[in-house]
């Protein structure tokens, strides 16, 4: 197995951006925070962009509110050799700021007040990913930190992080919106010819369902956005290019379970197809065996002890061991399968800590495990 050397990665000044990806709940936020803390303590000037961190984790980094700005982490017992800033992403605010930055005052106000904007900026799946990328671009652009660690939104699939911005662009691009809201005026005649009369019917059907007002709002929104949309797209492209550059690394976080590893595999393949740099896989919450004792022997001995009833504690300790060996064996098997499919991907296992990780010590502990200490 090809071991991921986390300290070498963190110490290398050429490492400028680390993106922690993975499917929902695997430990992306925890890993990102732990990496940033460790990097700062080893001398880097780091900033970590977290997304929806658990409240206590946020507090442990001194983040009390969502103010969409990096704050220096000043908490007791934390005197890093380098420095650490942390922030939580506020997606709505990031979107608003983008609108302000790209549209004139009057137009921006018009956009922000549009009901369709409210929908897109709060509940369209994909907005969070897009805004995370936008914020990442901003943080790198500020040039105040030599390492930016990014968490990614809690989504089903790690691929969403790469795909969602595209989906949002497609919607905002507005060809369909324009056709639906004002088919007579819109470009897109070619498509309409193909669809033929069905399109008119469809427009009618859609407007009876969602209502003419909504279509009207959408249309106004897209027209207002039109002028700034080029700017949007350019920025998204610039961030995409950044993700492809040599200073960037993707860390895929996965649980040692079939679903999470399958997702991780898809993601690894996708990164390679996109020429994006994959740094390694973090197998989180593993259960390594701590005593070299065969499970079968332990079971047999536990059986004997239970029958005699003499040493209940020793019997229980042996049962715990046998359970643990069974879990560890399965995890090893699953990880070996992943490694066979992706032999070039460096990997590190992080054991499941017996308690939730929500303070600085917990993050340091995860950091040590990441580094293989």
């Amino acid at each position, binding site marked *: 197995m090809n071991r991921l050397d986390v300290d070498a990665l963190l110490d290398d000044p050429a490492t400028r951006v680390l993106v922690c990806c993975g499917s929902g709940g695997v430990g992306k936020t925890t890993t990102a925070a732990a990496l940033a803390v460790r990097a700062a303590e080893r001398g880097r000037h780091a900033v970590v962009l977290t997304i929806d961190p658990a409240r206590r984790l946020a507090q442990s980094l001194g983040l009390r509110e969502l103010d969409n700005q990096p704050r220096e982490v000043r908490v007791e017992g934390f005197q890093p050799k380098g420095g650490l800033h942390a922030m939580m992403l506020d997606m709505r605010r990031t979107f608003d700021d983008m609108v302000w930055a790209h549209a004139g005052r009057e137009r921006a106000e018009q956009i922000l007040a549009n009901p369709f904007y409210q929908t897109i900026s709060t509940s369209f799946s994909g907005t969070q990913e897009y805004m995370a990328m936008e914020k990442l671009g901003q943080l790198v652009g500020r040039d105040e930190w030599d390492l930016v660690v990014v968490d990614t939104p809690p989504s089903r699939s790690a691929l969403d992080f790469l795909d969602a911005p595209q989906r949002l662009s497609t919607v905002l691009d507005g060809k369909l919106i324009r056709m639906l809201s004002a088919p007579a005026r819109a470009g897109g005649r070619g498509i309409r010819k193909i669809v033929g009369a069905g399109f008119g019917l469809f427009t009618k059907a859609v407007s009876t369902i969602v209502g003419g007002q909504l279509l009207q709002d959408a249309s106004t929104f897209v027209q207002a956005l039109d002028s700034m949309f080029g700017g949007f797209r350019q920025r998204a492209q610039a961030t995409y290019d950044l993700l492809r550059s040599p200073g960037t690394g993707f860390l895929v976080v996965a649980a040692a379970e079939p679903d999470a590893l399958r997702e991780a595999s898809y993601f690894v393949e996708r990164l390679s197809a996109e020429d994006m740099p994959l740094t390694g896989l973090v197998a989180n919450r593993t259960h390594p065996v701590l005593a070299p004792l065969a499970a079968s*022997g332990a079971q047999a001995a536990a059986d004997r*002890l239970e029958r005699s009833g003499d040493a209940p504690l020793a019997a229980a300790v042996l049962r715990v061991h046998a359970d643990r060996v069974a879990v560890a064996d399965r995890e090893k098997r699953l990880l070996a399968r992943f490694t066979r499919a992706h032999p070039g991907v460096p990997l590190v296992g992080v054991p499941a800590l017996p308690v939730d990780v929500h303070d600085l010590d917990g993050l340091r502990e995860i950091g040590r495990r990441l580094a293989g200490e």
Partner: protein
Amino acid sequence: MNGWTDELSRARLHVVTGKGGTGKTTVAAALALALATGGRRVLLVEVENRQGIARLFDRPPLPYAEERIASAPGGGEVRALAVDPEAALLEYLDMFYNLGFAGRTLRRMGAIEFATTLAPGLRDVLLTGKVKECVRRVRPTGRHEYDAVVLDAPPTGRVVRFLDVTRAMAELAKAGPIRGQSEGVVKLLHSGDTAVHLVALLEEMPVRETLDAVAELDAADLRPGAVFVNRVNPPRLPERSLVAAAQGRVDAERVRAGLASAGLEVDDDAVEGLVDQAVEHAMRVRAEQRAKELLAEADLPSLELPELTDGVDVAALYELAEVLVGRGVR
């Protein structure tokens, strides 16, 4: 409260939600098998375009049709349906406007995804509409097509919005074909025919999320059903050693002597490793006990399902279904 109740047995629509990854799809499938046991016909529905049911039952992707996927002990059967909102919308529109072949083209263009983007509530209205149609459908004999319908629902963070059809309708046109059917959906979801079950793990965050979800369901006048406590590990240490062990106090000498009496000679490092493992185990069990106490605040019937070390395959689903039947599910 422990086990299934008569009131839950009267539900015809079982909605299964929970924090992401806690086992919604697994529990929904096991529940469908359990409900079908003894000769009933149950429909298992998924709505998130993920083909989770097909994967779980080790089959090719499900088409948009109700297909038999498993037989249950005692002659019952489980059918499955993956509702695709685009297909549901087209099916729907087709009833009112003859879209014919244009429908397919629109779909290829992404026009339908687009329409559901305009009004995110539309997607939910279409999905719940299809579910309601399945619950209410009757055979020519006058009997319901399905004795029960089990829905593998969106996670707790989104489920109330998903089920709150009334709110979604507010986004849509004041009149129109979809509005008509939605009234029936609202009635079903807020009636005694529907129970919203929650899947939880014995960890603090999932339990808190479960409690929040229960409060949210109550506030939206939706009826919480049972809590399925998934992936429960057997406690191994004797109760009286647990608290001390969780604080790191395990008598290594006693462990060593016990091992020796069973004929196991191990070195110091191994004893230390065994003790560390026992301490971690005790800490986890204690955390699980606290989570269980917290969960009791929900005051709902609860059913435990064991952790299956080898993962979940079809045989394991039958095993879980048997556990549920043993806890009174019918």
